[in-house]
């Protein structure tokens, strides 16, 4: 049997999460195929074909798939599912939106956000905001899975899979896309960046967040934020790191003015090196930080920007 991975992309570039899902799929066993569903996504299919370990890329280019709407995408995956034992996607907002729908249509339970593959039917996944790790064994014939990108290295290039154009599976027409509100940024993508600088409630305002931006740009880092900072309007929602936001595991995570609530730690505690800058020496963030600096961030962050 084989594994089918739903590619995560924006019709131009393949998201790094797909290469991480390939690494997870290699441990499940069997051929690895990638489904690129999108609108004018042939270029993405070519990128997917280069990933090491992938033997076939299915490319379904159709306006129905242009905006990752769950209903048509799930129908397409279900139509293709006969040949596969594992149906896999990255645990991105697209994967989380589509895959449970696929699981329900196949009468399988969902195996969300896996952090390790023990065998073809046994997986580890974090529960309770990562405060416990559950190892679960699936009795379903079709395993429907999302993969936590921060727990797997991206598979490299080196493959030369065949790309096969396939037909879509129609559009039930239940939903329509209206608009995307996306801020274009030159900065690295949060979930694949080597360095992340995050700001929390301590940053104090949207204007002050510029301090975080400056040090991030000097380091070539992505910017993150705690839930408190996003709720307060200091930073946009797509910056949020935590249990219900993005999960990151960069080489260096710099937490600025972040106290370290459990739900924030859930999104960053697998980072290789954690730095915390906070004026409150009792802040829980210091319990997970490799290097802690008890200081006023308005004094320390500009200095840090100058010195790196």
């Amino acid at each position: 049997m084989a594994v089918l991975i739903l590619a995560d992309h924006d019709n131009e570039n393949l998201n790094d999460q797909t290469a991480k899902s390939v690494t997870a799929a290699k441990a499940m066993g069997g051929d690895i195929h990638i489904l690129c569903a999108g609108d004018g996504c042939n270029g993405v299919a070519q990128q997917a074909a280069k990933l090491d370990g992938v033997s076939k890329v299915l490319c379904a280019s159709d306006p129905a798939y242009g905006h990752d709407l769950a209903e048509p995408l799930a129908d397409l995956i279900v139509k293709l599912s006969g040949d596969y034992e594992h149906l896999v996607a990255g645990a991105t907002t697209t994967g989380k939106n589509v895959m449970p729908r696929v699981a329900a249509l196949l009468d399988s339970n969902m195996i969300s956000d896996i952090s390790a593959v023990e065998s073809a039917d046994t997986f580890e996944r974090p529960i309770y905001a990562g405060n416990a790790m559950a190892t679960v064994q699936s009795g379903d014939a079709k395993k429907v899975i999302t993969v936590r990108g921060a727990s797997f290295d991206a598979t490299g290039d080196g493959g030369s899979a065949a790309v096969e154009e396939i037909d879509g599976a129609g559009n039930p027409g239940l939903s329509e896309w209206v608009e995307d509100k996306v801020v274009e940024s030159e900065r690295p993508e949060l979930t694949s960046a080597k360095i992340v600088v995050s700001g929390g409630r301590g940053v104090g305002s949207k204007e002050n967040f510029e301090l975080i931006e400056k040090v991030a740009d000097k380091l070539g880092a992505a910017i993150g934020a705690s839930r408190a900072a996003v709720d307060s309007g200091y930073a946009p929602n797509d910056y949020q790191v935590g249990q219900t936001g993005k999960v990151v595991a960069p080489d260096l995570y710099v937490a600025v003015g972040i106290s370290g609530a459990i739900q924030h730690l859930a999104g960053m505690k697998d980072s290789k090196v954690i730095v915390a800058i906070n004026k409150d020496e009792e802040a829980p963030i210091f319990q997970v930080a490799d290097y802690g600096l008890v200081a006023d961030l308005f004094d320390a962050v500009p200095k840090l920007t100058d010195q790196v």
Partner: protein
Amino acid sequence: MKVLVPVKRVIDYNVKVRVKSDSTGVDLANVKMSMNPFDEIAVEQAIRLKEAGQVEEIVAVSIGVEKNQETLRTALAMGADRAILVKAVDNVENDVEPLAVAKILKAIVDEEKPELVLLGKQAIDNDANATGQMLSAMLGWSQATFASKLDIADGAATVTREVDGGLQVIKVQMPAIVTVDLRLNEPRYASLPNIMKAKKKPMETKTPEDYGVDASPRLTVVKVSEPPERKAGVLVGSVEELVEKLKTEAGVI
């Protein structure tokens, strides 16, 4: 319009979770339990729709143990009109899987015929983020997940969704499934008079068998273990020292 709001009873978000020494799960004995925070946001949204005159009736549903009636009383005290308790397990440690929950909810939707089901996007215990999407698939309805804004007009819901790249706005036909994200609203606290009134609101008790659903689990929990612990780090005295350590000791910049 009638709205159905499923609510889950979970370990309170402020409680420190402890893994049991026999690795079978987390310790839920004598631990404070509350309504899943995302479900509170769903209940709040239903009440706001009712206050705006768009909804006539709010039905809250909870699936789990007998004590889930406390969670339903909270929903009733906030402003739901009536409640359905589905007693699916005897032991709080046996989590009812999203697939089984969605099947029970589908049967309830078939009976109650709501035009909208509002759910939390995920429960903070199993973190599965699946039930709403599964229910939508089973019903063949439209779905809008991770909602941070919801407007209903002319038989359709316009939903702003929090996605990885920012925000996505979609328009979904009613009847619809909407799962809610953190920033949709701030849930109210139930007032004491409303808590008293809630005790008189109707609550039915059902079982999965009443709906012809087999709620037995598909996943076997092999073990539950502690996450890897991080080693305690060091405090540095200055920005200079920090930069020095990051360059030489950690080698990350």
